[in-house]
């Protein structure tokens, strides 16, 4: 009885799967079509989902940069990877350190700082972008890597996730270590950080998604292709006329590939990260 009911559900599962897959499939297929007229002719029918003569020419054009004003795709990829990587790595160090102090050390003003961090989680970046633009402009930081990295390293929500984790480690553990003569720094490095590996993964995944996606800020602070990340480069290329969909889709595939691949490999981790961010928030 139960099994037949579930069998009946498969068409519903598949229908929704198609809704989510079909657009992505069209992106892949279109990126493999060399002839622009063929793309426009076939986009009205089921042929949009199928490529008769797959070609990698669009990829060659995007990778070499001949359609991107001479900047090879790898430049934008490098920019994004460098920016996101620096934010994530710097963030893990800075935020876990702050959280460790808030959770494990005793000092005046501790509870005030905890509530300050919690309060700061709410502040939406979009509402701070314009005054921040004024600040970084005064610093002479416009059009650089650090303008896209430094403001995002300290992250209240990441501090909070680490903080919650560190408060749950039994006190006896570091008391024992202290008796053995370990300094707080050693306790953080040898006990705190290694134990917090799941939080590190969560923070790394959530931050990577957030900053791989970031668009408003790089749009405001980058000028030329030199420091421009993938998202802004994708938008600029998309806005160029005449628009060649084959090239645009190849760019789109190359932009989403890295994260999609990581997602396929670590799907469970991705989903757990989201859950962890939700149920604790």
């Amino acid at each position, binding site marked *: 009885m139960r099994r037949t009911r*579930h069998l009946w*559900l498969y068409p519903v599962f598949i229908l*929704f799967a198609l809704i*989510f897959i079909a*657009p*992505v499939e*069209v992106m892949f297929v279109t990126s493999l079509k060399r002839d622009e007229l063929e793309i426009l002719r076939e986009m*009205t*029918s089921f042929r*949009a989902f199928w490529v008769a003569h797959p070609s990698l020419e669009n990829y060659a054009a995007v990778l070499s940069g001949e359609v991107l004003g001479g900047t090879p795709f790898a430049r934008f990829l490098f920019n994004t990877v460098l920016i996101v990587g620096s934010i994530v790595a710097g963030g893990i160090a*800075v*935020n876990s*350190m*702050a959280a*460790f*102090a808030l959770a494990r*050390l*005793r*000092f005046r003003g501790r509870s005030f*700082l905890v509530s300050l961090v919690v309060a700061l989680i*709410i*502040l*939406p970046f*979009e*509402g*701070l972008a*314009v*005054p*921040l633009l*004024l*600040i970084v402009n005064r610093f002479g930081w416009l059009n650089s890597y650090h303008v896209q990295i430094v*403001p*995002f*390293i*300290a992250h*209240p929500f990441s501090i909070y996730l680490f903080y919650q984790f560190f408060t749950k480690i039994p006190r006896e553990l570091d008391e024992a270590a202290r008796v053995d003569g370990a*300094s*707080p720094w050693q306790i953080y490095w040898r006990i705190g950080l290694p134990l917090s590996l799941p939080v590190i993964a969560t923070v790394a995944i959530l931050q990577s998604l957030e900053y*791989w*996606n970031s668009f*408003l800020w790089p*749009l405001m602070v980058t000028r030329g292709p030199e420091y421009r990340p*993938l*998202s802004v480069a*994708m*938008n600029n290329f*998309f806005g160029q006329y005449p628009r060649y969909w084959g090239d645009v*889709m190849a760019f*789109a595939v190359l*932009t*989403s590939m890295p*994260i*999609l691949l990581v997602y*396929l490999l670590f*799907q469970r981790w991705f*989903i757990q990260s*989201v859950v962890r961010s*939700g*149920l604790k*928030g």
Partner: protein
Amino acid sequence: MLIRRKKTDDALVALGFLSPSLLLLTAFLIAPFVMAVVLSFTNQRLISPLPTQFIGLRNYARLFSDPDFWTALRNTVLFAAVVVPLQSGLALFLATLINRRIRGINFFRGVYFMPVVITMVVVCVIWYFLLIYPEGLLNALVRAVSFGKLGPYDWLRDRRLAMPTIILISIWQGVGFQMVIYLAGLQDIPRELYEAAVIDGANPWQQFWHVTMPGLRNAHIFVLVTTTILAFKLFTQVEVLTQGGPLGATNTLVRYIFVSGYRRLKVGYASAASVIFVLIVLFISLIQRKLFVEEREIR
């Protein structure tokens, strides 16, 4: 003596641990926030030969008398008011659908979540292609389903269709996120509750309303509030797909801030709009905190 020394030690050590983040948070979060408030009372521009002047509430007065601001605010609220229930409802539906032990369930869960990891700009580009007027794939689909009676529609350039189209694209991209939260919430509800409900003669519909829905209370609060705040931040989709058009029909608060502060260099004026935006988001978050506190008190 000993205790006292220990205390000072900790304070110094704590300062060492905390100073990098406190420095960064002050410079890039607290300072911009304070500046937004201060600048909103000035005529500050991004680049200007003239000195900045204090102009009182004039920015706010101008803001509130600008019909474009009200359009942007109304669009943003409308977007949130439609997206939040639709996306959360669909997410809950998908989560209950997928919350079973059958073959291939991990595959389907993975597929439904996949758009969440695709860069929003790419999502917009893909959909722009599907929505091409008059010969795009979606128009072809609508025509086929309606036997040629409906369409073609100019999804992104028709004043009445542009916002609903942006809404659908946003839901397509984001629903997997809330689905996963709900799925975790569903799996936290003890099985015994359902067994007890069955013994009491509850049908599946009653089980859903009297066991599932109350059991998801925390998931509901989280999903509703995060989706609402995300909805208020709407920018990328409209900037890439419509540039706020046609005739401002898809302009949003964040885009209004972006255009006045960055394109027109009117930092003071954009700061006033930013303050309004932050206040709205703060208000929504405070409601969330209040709901969470109540939950804790009940326990």
